[in-house]
C-alpha cells in the first residue's frame, strides 16, 4: 500500500510527483493520475465538459487545498518528507542510489538502471493571498513564515519562488516555498545505510541551472520568475509579450516590479544546491561508496543522453527503439515507456524551449517511426506557450504514426483531463516488450563517455579509495 507525502508537501510538486513516478517504475507499476488516487480519474476525464471558468476555479481550489495555513509552518519538519520518499521505493538492496536535483529525464534513467533517487528539493506551499503581479509584496509576505521554517529546519536552504507566468493560477492563493537540503539528514542517511551496501555507487544528480535571486538571509533567497516560457530578463525588465500577457489577464500592471537580484543561486525547482556535497562526501567515505557526480547545465540537458541510452539498449535487445515519447514536466509513464519499447525525451514544461529541445534532438539523430506527445496543462496562456499547430508540426516528423497521448490539442493549455488520460493513452498504443532487469551501471557510465552530451560524469571517489 502506497503512503502519501506529509500534508505540508504539495502533491503537484515536481519532486514529489517524480519520486512517486520512479517509485512506481521500480515497483514495475504504472503511474496513473500523477500519483493521485485513480478514482479521481473519472471526474477529471470529463473536466472538459465544464465551462472554463468553473474548470479554472476547480484547478485553483485543488491547488489551494494542497497548501497549508501559515500557522502550521512552525510544525513543518523536512525529515518527514525524507521518511515518506524512502517508503516509495522497494525495500531491497541496490547497487546504486541517486541523490540530488529533480529531473524527469533522470526518473527515466534511474528507472532503467533500477536505482532509487532521493530528491534534494521539495515544495511546501503556504496559504497566503497576494496579487500575482506584485512580486515585492509576495516577497515581504513570505519573510516571516520563511524565517520560522528555517529556524526549525537548520539543514535546509529556502527559495521563495514567485512565477506569475507559469504558476499564475496557483500563486494568487499561496506562497511557493521550495526547500533544498544542505545535509542528507538522519532519515536519508539511515535508509542509505540499509539499502546501499559498501562498495555501492552514490550518484549525485546536479543540475547547474541558476537564477538571479534576492538574498533575504543566510539560507533564504527570493526568486522572481522561473525556468520556462518567459526569460529571466523578461521577469526582471519586462517585454512586449509580457505587457500583452498582463493586459490579456486584466492585470493593472504592464511589467513586473520585482526586487533587485543580488546574486545568482541554484534555481529553486531544478537547481542543485552544492552545499550538500560535503555531507555526501562524508557518507561516501564512511560507507565506502563510489561517489559519482552527474553534472549538467540545465534541466533538459540530460534528456538527449537518456533518450540515446534507451535507444541503444533497446537495439541491443533486438527491439526497434523507433518510438519516441515526450513526457512533459510531471506527466510521464516510466513503466509503460519501457513496456512499449519507447524512447523517452523529457521536456521540462510545455513551453517554447521544450519544443526547441526536441527539434534539436531530432535534427541530430536517426528519425523515429512513431512520436507520442504528453503535455503538461497549467491553464494559462502565458508568454512562451507553444500553440497546438507547432506541436503538430513536431509530431509530423514521425515517419509512420504520431499521437497526442491523452491531450486534446484544441484545449491546450487548459485540458486538465490530460492528467486522467495519458497513462491509458500509452497503454492503448500497441507494442509490448518485456520490461528488462536493471541495466548494469557500467553500460550507463560508458555511454556518458566523450563530449556528445552536455553532461559530465565525474567519478570523484572510488570505493577502493574510500577504504
Amino acid at each position, binding site marked *: 500500500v502506497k503512503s502519501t507525502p506529509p500534508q505540508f508537501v504539495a502533491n503537484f510538486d515536481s519532486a514529489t510527483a517524480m519520486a512517486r513516478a520512479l517509485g512506481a517504475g521500480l515497483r514495475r507499476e504504472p503511474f496513473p493520475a500523477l500519483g493521485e488516487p485513480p478514482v479521481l480519474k473519472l471526474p477529471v476525464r470529463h473536466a472538459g465538459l465544464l465551462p472554463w471558468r468553473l474548470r479554472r476555479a476547480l484547478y485553483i481550489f485543488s491547488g489551494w487545498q494542497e497548501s497549508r495555513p501559515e500557522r502550521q509552518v512552525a510544525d513543518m519538519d523536512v525529515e518527514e518528507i525524507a521518511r515518506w520518499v524512502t517508503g516509495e521505493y522497494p525495500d531491497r538492496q541496490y547497487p546504486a542510489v541517486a541523490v540530488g536535483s529533480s529531473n524527469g529525464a533522470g526518473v527515466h534513467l534511474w528507472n532503467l538502471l533500477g536505482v532509487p533517487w532521493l530528491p534534494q528539493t521539495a515544495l511546501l506551499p503556504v496559504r497566503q493571498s497576494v496579487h500575482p503581479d506584485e512580486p515585492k509584496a509576495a516577497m515581504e509576505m513570505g519573510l516571516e513564515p520563511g524565517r520560522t521554517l528555517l529556524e526549525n529546519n537548520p539543514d535546509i536552504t529556502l527559495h521563495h519562488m514567485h512565477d506569475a507566468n507559469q504558476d499564475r493560477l496557483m500563486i494568487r492563493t499561496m506562497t511557493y516555498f521550495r526547500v533544498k537540503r544542505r545535509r542528507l539528514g538522519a532519515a536519508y*542517511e539511515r535508509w542509505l*545505510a540499509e539499502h546501499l551496501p559498501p562498495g555501492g555507487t552514490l550518484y549525485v544528480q546536479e543540475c547547474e541551472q541558476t537564477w538571479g535571486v534576492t538574498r533575504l538571509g543566510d539560507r533564504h533567497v527570493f526568486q522572481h520568475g522561473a525556468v520556462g516560457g518567459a526569460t529571466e530578463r523578461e521577469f526582471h525588465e519586462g517585454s512586449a509579450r509580457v505587457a500583452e500577457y498582463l493586459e490579456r489577464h486584466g492585470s493593472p500592471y504592464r511589467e513586473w516590479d520585482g526586487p533587485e537580484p543580488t546574486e545568482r543561486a541554484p534555481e529553486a525547482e531544478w537547481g542543485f544546491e552544492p552545499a550538500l556535497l560535503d555531507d555526501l562526501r562524508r557518507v561516501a567515505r*564512511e560507507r565506502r561508496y563510489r561517489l559519482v557526480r552527474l553534472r549538467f547545465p540545465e534541466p533538459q540537458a540530460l534528456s538527449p543522453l537518456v533518450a540515446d541510452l534507451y535507444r541503444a539498449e533497446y537495439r541491443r535487445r533486438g527491439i526497434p527503439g523507433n518510438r519516441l515519447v515526450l513526457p512533459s514536466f510531471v506527466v510521464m509513464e516510466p513503466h509503460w515507456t519501457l513496456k512499449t519499447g519507447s524512447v523517452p525525451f523529457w521536456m521540462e514544461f510545455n513551453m517554447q524551449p521544450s519544443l526547441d529541445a526536441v527539434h534539436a534532438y531530432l535534427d541530430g539523430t536517426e528519425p523515429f517511426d512513431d512520436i507520442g506527445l504528453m503535455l503538461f496543462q497549467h491553464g494559462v496562456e502565458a508568454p512562451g506557450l507553444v500553440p497546438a499547430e507547432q506541436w503538430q508540426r513536431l509530431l509530423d516528423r514521425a515517419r509512420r504514426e504520431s499521437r497526442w497521448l491523452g491531450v486534446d490539442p484544441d484545449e491546450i493549455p487548459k485540458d486538465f483531463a490530460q492528467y486522467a488520460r495519458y497513462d491509458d493513452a500509452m497503454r492503448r498504443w500497441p507494442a509490448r516488450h518485456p520490461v528488462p532487469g536493471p541495466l548494469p551501471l557500467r553500460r550507463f557510465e560508458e555511454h556518458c563517455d566523450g563530449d556528445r552530451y552536455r553532461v559530465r560524469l565525474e567519478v570523484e571517489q572510488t570505493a577502493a579509495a574510500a577504504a
Partner: protein
Amino acid sequence: VPPVTPVFTRTWGREGGGGPVLVMVHGLVVAGSMLAPSAERLAGSVRVLAPDLPGYGRSRESAGAVSVPSLASDLLEWAAGAQVRRALWLGVSFGCQVLTEVALRRPDLVERMVLVAPTVDPTARTVPRILRRWQQESSTQSTALKRLLLADYARAGARRAAGTVRAALRDRPEQRLPHLTAPTLVVRGTADPITTAAWAQEVTRLLPRGRLVTVPEAPHAMTFDAPDALADAVRPFLDGQEDPL
C-alpha cells in the same frame, strides 16, 4: 528506581590515566548488566566502558525506529561524548552488528575488536528460524541470566524488543565485513545454537584481518555464563600479544 540518563554507562577499572580503553557493546535488548562478569575479569590492564544503548537497559530514552545504522550513530555520539578516541571494542551477539557498522564508518576509532557470538546468520534471518534458535538457546541459559533477561526486556518494552529483532534480521553484516581493516578476533562457544560454526567461519573469512577462536562448551551468552573461559580466550588478543594473520 535510578534516574534515567540518556546513556547509562557502566565502567570497570581505574579512572583516568592514559591506558587503553575497552568498549563493550551489548546484545539484543539485554543491556550492559549481562556484560558485567566478563568486564570484571577483563578490567585490569584496560579500563572497560559498557554503555546501555539509548532505548535499552537503563538508557531508556530514544526516538524513532530501531535500526543498526541508527544504533551505530547513537554509539558514535556516545563515544564522542565519552572522549573515546582509539579503543579496543568488544561486541556481543547483536552488538557485533552495531559494532561492525561503527568500525565501517569510523575505522580510526577501532584499534582492534572482538566479535563474540556474532549474529545473524543469513540462514536464520526469518522470525520463525530465529525463534527456533532462541528456544534452543534458552536451555543453555543459567537461571541468573534468565532473570536478567526478563528485567531488561521489561525495561525496553515489547515494541522496542520487536523493533530490535526486525532491525537485526534486516541488517546484512556480511556486506560490511570485507571493508573492516582492524585486527579482529571472532569468538564462538561450541554450545551456541544461534551462532553456528559455519557462520562464525564465514565471518572470519570475510574479515581482511580476522581470526577465529572457539571456546569449548561455552553458550551464546558467554559473557555472563562463561566469563572465565571468554576472558582467557580474548585477553592475549586484547593485550596485543597475538595478531591475526
